[in-house]
């Protein structure tokens, strides 16, 4: 096991974690501020990917694809908030989960009606389609470096937004005490609308960014949603910091599990056992991680809400 391999796997863990963070950020933001668990967040991610792919096919411009995806999905998020989310915010968590699950069912069929069941193609921007020489030994895909860069930028941007800008302060005010904020002149419903749309746009950004490296098909939202839920649960639902840490943890543990576990097991067990138990354990690793964290910290690592 060379040091180059280890370095590459570390980068991979970072990249996977940041990929998850992009999606987790929107979800945890909405939960933290609006107190609603929106499982249709995965569908917004899917919508972003589809719109980006379609735009890419028409314009051949990656930047256009990302922008159009964010705008269109933001609009979808706007409508969704006004029509449904508003009504679910005052309900219990079960109703929220079920209501947004219904949206998933509807969204999958609507997407299928528009684009058909076959996966969509989104080509990678040619400039980023090859590897970059990081060290004399290590070549790393340029596109994954982009994901890392965007992930870090988003994390920084969100942090600054929530702590330094006036809008961010208002958002936190609205979250911690709605009535007080309203009395002080903050238009809470408008604020919530804004946060939800922001969340939707973040999901779309993730979808557009991941489009070239993943399969764009119906059900893609649910696949990644499970992983994202694990991230925010580990980190603490509602906490941006928690989402960041949780996502990175999941990214590293999952990558390490897949990369090193089979080899590690071979040291102790026979190759036959290692090759059959290894992949299973690797697949279970993030769920085991989550269970362990919850045993010691039942509300996650950085609980924002009780």
């Amino acid at each position, binding site marked *: 096991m*060379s040091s*180059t*391999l280890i370095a*590459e*796997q570390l980068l*991979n863990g970072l*990249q*996977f974690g940041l*990929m998850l963070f992009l999606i987790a950020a929107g979800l945890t933001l909405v939960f933290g501020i609006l107190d609603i668990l929106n499982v249709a967040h995965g569908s917004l991610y899917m919508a972003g990917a589809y719109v980006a792919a379609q735009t890419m096919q028409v314009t051949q411009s990656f930047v256009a694809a990302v922008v159009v995806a964010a705008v269109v999905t933001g609009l979808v998020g706007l409508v969704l908030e006004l029509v449904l989310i508003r009504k679910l915010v005052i309900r219990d968590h079960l109703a929220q989960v079920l209501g947004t699950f219904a949206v998933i069912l509807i969204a*999958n069929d609507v997407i*299928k009606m528009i684009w*058909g*069941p*076959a*996966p*969509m*193609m989104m*080509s*990678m921007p040619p400039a980023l*389609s*090859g*590897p970059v020489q990081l060290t004399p030994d290590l*070549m*790393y*895909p*340029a*596109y*994954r470096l982009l994901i890392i860069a965007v992930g870090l930028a988003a994390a920084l941007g969100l942090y600054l937004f929530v702590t330094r800008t006036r809008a961010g302060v208002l958002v936190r005010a609205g979250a911690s005490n709605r009535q007080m904020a309203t009395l002080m002149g903050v238009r809470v419903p408008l604020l919530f609308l804004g946060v939800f749309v922001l969340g939707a746009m973040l999901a779309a950004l993730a979808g557009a960014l991941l489009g*070239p*490296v*993943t*399969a*764009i*098909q*119906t*059900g*893609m939202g649910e*696949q*990644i949603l499970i*992983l994202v839920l694990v991230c925010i649960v580990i980190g603490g639902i509602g906490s941006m910091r928690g989402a960041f840490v949780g996502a990175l943890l999941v990214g590293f543990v999952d*990558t390490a599990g*897949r*990369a090193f576990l*089979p080899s590690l097991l071979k040291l102790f067990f026979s190759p036959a056992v290692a*090759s059959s138990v*290894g*992949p*299973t354990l*690797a*697949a279970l690793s993030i769920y085991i991680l989550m269970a362990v964290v919850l045993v010691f910290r039942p509300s996650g690592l950085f609980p924002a809400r009780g």
Partner: protein
Amino acid sequence: MRLIKQLLALAALVPGLAFAQAPIKVGIANDLSGPFAALGAEARDGFNLAIKELGGKLGGKPAEFLQTDMGGNPDQARQLVNRYIQRDKIDFFTGPIGSNVALAVGPTLFAAKIPYLSNNPGPSQFAGAQCNDYWFGVSYQNDAFHEAAGKVAADRGFKNMVIMAPDYPAGKDALNGFKRGYKAPVGQEVYTKLGQIDYAAELAQLRDAKPEAVYIFLPGGMGINFIKQFVSAGLNKSIKIVGPGFSGDEDVIRAVGEPMLGMFNTAQWAHDLDNAQNKKFVAAFRKEYNNRTPSVYAAQAYDVIMAIDAAVKATKGNVADRPAVLAALKKADFASVRGPFTYGINNFPIQPYYLRVIEKNAQGQITNKLVGKVFDSYQDVYVGQCKK
């Protein structure tokens, strides 16, 4: 609630009682939602094209084709098959894309003496110990594509290979099949998670291992993800990709595009296979479906309907005489788009397998090109376990 339900069920049945001579019924369980939705849609297009060409008839007699989506779910499929058998009284069955569904519904159909013609899955269980007269693996046996690919890799002298599949029985079967065809030890065997999205870890291992080629069995979205990421990591410059036909077929090409250029894949059919029936089929498919090139799923589905048609013709529409139907089906006496073939005693085909490579054609489109024959007349390895 239940009363209303029963009355409605009754009402839905009434039209079915009106026929004097009952039409021949084919039950098709489509895979239009769930993990194989894209492939199921291809199959459905193949079915519909054949049905259209036959004018909705089989062997010249009136026929009814019942198509319902079961979403790739074995439990739902069981439900559906029960309904097809008990309520609709089908005479033939086809449709599922996944082996798990085939294994789930097969025994029920065999017990009810209904011929099941497979438009895709060819599980080893049905080729060996559980072989049955009512099963017809019209397309191929699951291991065949992998063994053919193994032979290709061996013939081309790819050394130090890394082979990859998801960690489930079909994945393990695939790699075992490959190793049988390759006839030499492989460099590394890697198992990924079913439904895995990100392959960065495996790609790093690949880069470290420096194989001459990698063999992947990653059906559906998994393959799409992997190939995109493989090319993005620049690994396609030094490592060749070999895959079974279904990982490199037209549907995947449409989803991935350029990154697939240069991929070798093996199948029992290619759209540029040079026989009259195939030329006719491909042209008709393109005309019907907006100039789309058919994939192997569409071709197989088309063949199944044509096979049923030939059998009905041979028995002059007397499908109630099951032994006669089985005998007719067994002859495989129809113009298949892959060319003529025969069945082994386990009702799996003995047929050639071809090598295809993904290239840009004269019009600049990315598509498969037939480049060679891997096996002239290959029979699956499980036939010995079939005791009839």
